[in-house]
């Protein structure tokens, strides 16, 4: 196990943990930020897989723009998820 492989596994674990947080959180703003963290960790994974082009595109689109759109949508609706 080199440092590179350990970093890859750590980044993928963080990705899955952030995705689970996005499902689990009740505060929709925090859930949107967790979804942005998924995009950021995915971009790190792409960078570790030697694809910096895809990493820049993923960091711009997946981590920043979709989070901004979610935050704008949450601002126009309500912040808490309704209990069933």
């Amino acid at each position, binding site marked *: 196990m080199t440092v590179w492989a350990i970093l890859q596994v750590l980044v993928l674990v963080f990705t899955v943990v952030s995705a689970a947080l996005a499902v689990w959180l009740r505060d929709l703003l925090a859930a949107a930020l967790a979804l942005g963290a998924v995009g950021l960790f995915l971009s790190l994974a792409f960078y570790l897989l030697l694809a910096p*082009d895809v990493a820049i595109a993923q960091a711009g689109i997946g981590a*920043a*723009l979709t989070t*901004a759109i979610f935050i704008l949508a949450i601002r126009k609706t309500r912040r808490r998820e309704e209990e069933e």
Partner: protein
Amino acid sequence: MSVVVRTIARMLVPVGLVFGAYVIMHGHLTPGGGFQGGAVAASALALILVSFSAKELKPVKGLLSALESTGGVAFVVFAFLGIGFTFFANAIAGMGGLFGQPVDYGPNPGYLNTSGTLPLMNWAVGLKVLAGLGSVVLLFALFGEGEDDR
């Protein structure tokens, strides 16, 4: 948004715009290109929209629309430059002059005035992506803002 978000946004928006311009400009030398740089610059615009009100960017909407059309038309025009050989052939690579310097094989630092139509196409696609994604986020932000004329 709160004053913390506003202060950080004031610092980060110029950095994002400049980094997007750098990624577009050095697209033929370093990782990145038109699409990636345009996405980074558009995320800076989205940061303005999230942290401040949507009215700040409302006068820019016509400019963004014009930039999108200009980028698309310029991309196709640069593609038509190589129509004597094939569509999308790189007509002015290695011909000398601006953007026409040849490049040696192997690792080298790279120069900005190489690669023929590639930097011009990078700028066209970058402006197009910046204007397209920026106008998408701007339309989202302007939706339902009261007496707006979108």
